[in-house]
């Protein structure tokens, strides 16, 4: 695997990617399990009106950070494919966080 020569940059980028993955997943959880029930059971549409765009922004940031990470670090092809697929699967971002945690552990021990 070819890596940038600065390991700190590389680790930092993978940590940022993992953080954004978690944020994307958590905003989706709040949208689906908090805002949607409040709208349909409580009759308050404001919850989804706020959380919808917040999750939309988190998703856009996730896709952007994924593009940045793939451009910055040469990850194994299977990891890249998994992260791209995960972007379009509900809660797939949590799967990414796990993949990145494993990758970070490997790099930290290298």
């Amino acid at each position, binding site marked *: 695997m070819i890596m*940038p*020569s*600065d390991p700190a*940059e*590389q680790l930092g980028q993978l940590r940022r990617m993992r953080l954004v993955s978690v944020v994307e997943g958590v905003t989706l959880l709040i949208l689906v399990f908090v805002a949607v029930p409040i709208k349909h059971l409580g009759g308050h549409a404001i919850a989804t009106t706020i959380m919808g765009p917040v999750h939309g922004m988190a998703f856009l940031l996730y896709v*952007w950070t994924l593009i*940045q990470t793939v*451009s*910055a*670090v040469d990850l194994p092809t299977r990891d890249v494919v998994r992260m791209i697929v995960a972007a379009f699967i509900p809660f797939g971002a949590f799967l990414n966080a796990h993949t990145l945690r494993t990758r970070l552990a490997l790099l930290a021990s290298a």
Partner: protein
Amino acid sequence: MQVYLWLKALHVAATMTWISGTVVAGLAVASRMACAGIQAEQDRSFLAVVRRWDRSVSLPAMLLAWALGIVMAMQAGWFSSPWLMIKLAIVGALAALHGVLSGTLLRLNGSADQPSAILLYAAPAAILGVVMIAILVVTKPF
């Protein structure tokens, strides 16, 4: 109307900041292709400055431009307008270009790697995208 004008002014300011940062990042990556020897050492310092600017200014500006743009489009009910759909496609391409440049700046940090030759055209592509957006937004042809 007053709120809309403030949103619009901030959206334009954020967009100008984001795109100018993307153009500089494109030029910085292109400069690596032209540098060798002692010049490469000076180029590394320049790349480090551009990378810090990208992280602390261009990225937040892009996020602000997206957020304000979404709010404005929702307020004005433009999401069904064809011109906005085309604009969003161009914005997506510009964001992807910025992501590639940002990642490439990280990769080049302290490295002797050469960037992909196609990134030589990144800065002109960003300008072309902005020109197309300006025409679409001002004329709203369809």
